[in-house]
């Protein structure tokens, strides 16, 4: 035992290990995934090989991986802002749904508009709808201290029912009504609203937008006063308040922005990929679970918007590759959901070692906090 103690002591002094911890944690999750595969009677190496081949094996599969990564990146970038502001946003699913609804309604009601006007309008509609969905939990948390985890989850349920209601009536495809088949989906959107595609794949401009948004999120968080205040509020609300920051306003803003970005994820999914909105009655039927998996990507990217870019590709690849894995080794794609859960648990649980290593390095958060104190003293004097 003493030996292990010494090993741990030595590891804790290795500052460079700090940023590797989440990767080690995710690797551990995949090792457990391999054990699960073995128990299910599949060869783990064969399964993971099929997964990688399914995700990157051909131009089309690679394009699909990027397409799957797109909503993860939008949601993930928003999650970075929310979490940095001390807001835990579990509402990505619902925010995506309302974003998609708003964009769809915009596109359907203005079929004669040209692309250059309609696409920005749809994006704006999705952005705003997502923002509204983030505003409710954001304001309730910031001003009334209502647990945002629970309210965002409830907002998901409300969004799904709103979608089911609208798709089974007000915006249902007229053809469905005529033929009395009543499949809950909209008509195909006007072609002017489609995001340009890189034919023959499904790769579309959405991914470019997502990357730009991720970069903007980074600029916001680390290069602007707003972002500085959001991070300060997330790190230490009391000190921020003493420094004269309106804590409630910036906390709410973090959640609203997270909702808005998830709304963009929803609308780009519709105008970039599906070209119509349909529902199977659940949120995941439309989102593919991106509202949750975006959290996984953001955590894996160390809550850094730029880190979310490669992280989204990795988790997009998992989702796409899972189908191939299912065909080759007969393990249901649900394994990937379970694996994502393990990644979340492991990454969050491994934070303790990251913190300890960082504490030994004596660099953790000190610049920001000392700045806050100085600012606070200046404000008080």
């Amino acid at each position, binding site marked *: 035992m003493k030996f292990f103690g010494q090993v741990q002591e030595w590891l804790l002094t290795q500052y460079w290990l700090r940023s590797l911890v989440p990767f080690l944690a995710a690797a551990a999750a995949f090792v457990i995934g391999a054990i699960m595969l073995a128990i*299910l009677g599949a060869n783990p190496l064969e399964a993971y090989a099929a997964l990688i081949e399914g995700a990157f094996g051909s131009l089309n599969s690679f394009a699909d991986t990027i397409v799957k990564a797109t909503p993860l990146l939008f949601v993930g970038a928003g999650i970075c802002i929310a979490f940095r502001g001390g807001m*835990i946003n*579990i509402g990505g699913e619902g925010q995506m749904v309302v974003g998609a609804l708003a964009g769809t309604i915009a596109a359907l009601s203005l079929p004669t508009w040209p692309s250059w006007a309609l696409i920005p309008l749809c994006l704006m509609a999705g952005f705003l709808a997502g923002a509204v969905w983030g505003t*409710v939990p954001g304001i*309730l948390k910031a001003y*009334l*201290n*209502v*647990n945002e*985890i*629970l*309210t965002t*989850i*409830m*907002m998901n*349920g*409300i969004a799904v*029912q*709103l979608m*089911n*209601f609208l798709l*089974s*009536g007000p915006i249902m495809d007229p053809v469905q009504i005529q033929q009395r088949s009543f499949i809950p989906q909209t008509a195909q959107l006007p072609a002017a609203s489609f995001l340009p595609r890189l034919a023959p794949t499904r790769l579309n401009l959405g991914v470019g937008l997502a990357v730009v948004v991720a970069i903007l999120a980074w600029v916001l968080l680390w290069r602007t006063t707003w972002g500085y205040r959001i991070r300060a509020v997330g790190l230490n609300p009391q000190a921020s308040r003493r420094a004269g920051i309106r804590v409630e306003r910036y906390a709410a803003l973090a959640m609203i922005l997270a909702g808005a970005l998830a709304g963009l994820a929803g609308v780009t999914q519709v105008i970039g990929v599906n070209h119509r909105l349909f529902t199977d009655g*659940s949120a995941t039927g439309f989102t593919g679970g991106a509202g*949750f998996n975006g*959290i*996984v990507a953001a*955590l894996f990217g160390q809550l850094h918007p730029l880190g979310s870019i490669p992280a989204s590709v990795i988790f997009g690849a998992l989702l796409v590759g899972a189908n191939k894995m299912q065909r080759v080794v007969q*393990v*249901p794609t*649900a*394994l*990937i*959901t*379970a*694996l*994502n*859960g*393990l*990644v*979340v*648990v*492991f990454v*969050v*649980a*491994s*934070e*303790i070692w990251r913190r300890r290593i960082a504490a030994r390095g004596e660099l953790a958060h000190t610049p920001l906090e000392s700045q806050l104190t100085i600012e606070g003293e200046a404000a008080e004097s």
Partner: protein
Amino acid sequence: MTDLLTPAVLVGIAISGIRLATPYLYATIGETFGQLSGVLNLGVEGIMLMGAFAAFYVALTTGNLWLGLLAAIVVGAVMGLAMAFISVTLQAEQGISGIGVYLFGLGMSDLLFQKTMGSVETVNGFPAIPIPFLVNIPVVGSLLFNHNVLVYGAYLLVPLAWIVIHKTTWGLKLRSVGQNPAAADSLGVSVNMVRYVSVTFGGLMSGIAGASLSIALLNVFQQNLTSGMGFIAVALVYFGGWSPWGVLGGSLLFSTINALQNWAQIANLPIPPTFAVMMPYVLTILALVFAVRRVNQPAALTKTYERGGS
């Protein structure tokens, strides 16, 4: 609307409200203990799904419902213990790790379901046990005294939990750990031990909650069987003000709304069913807003404790 006024319909809705409160009750009572000790276990939904699967699968293959229940208890306790390790020993952010546990349970129960059964099957769940004499009381008899064993168990749990929390030394320790862990620690209470026990117990109860759905109420298992009940249960603990009687009220309110909503769908009322389904979520948010005013929220809820730490 005249249908609503017939006594038979009202009694029917009340009976099904009382039955449907069962999974909420197990999950919320368990979660109450965890939250009182200062740990928010958001993985309830995932644990319920795993418990529901374990109970159903074991009951289906062995034909023994009690073995099924035992399986759910074991699975729930193990997952609760894991959550305790993550949130107490590793001091992980409780909200996010709970989502991880949820995703794990969601994926894992689906995976096992597809691998072992593949299609929806049914079991004969726990039968109703009419209580002699009492069941013959008009109305009240059929309301309260003609249920299966898991339903009775859920309601018996409420006063038991209240006694444990308010009338035992352990309950005092539990509450002190959730209010002021440092003070409790200085008086010789093992903060970590109390939290481990409470969170593991909460997991165990979530397992039973899942089992009550799959082998006592619905008697089926399918992907995402619980469809959000676990999350509502976590919110109900806030709603109930961390008291067993409070969560009883909350559980009954929600289960009655569920029952009403089922009835509204069958009775073809001129309200879109989607709005009926939406109601519990809207109500939960309102309930949470009002629950904020409660003074008895455990002060250390979601806060990790480290001796000598800040």
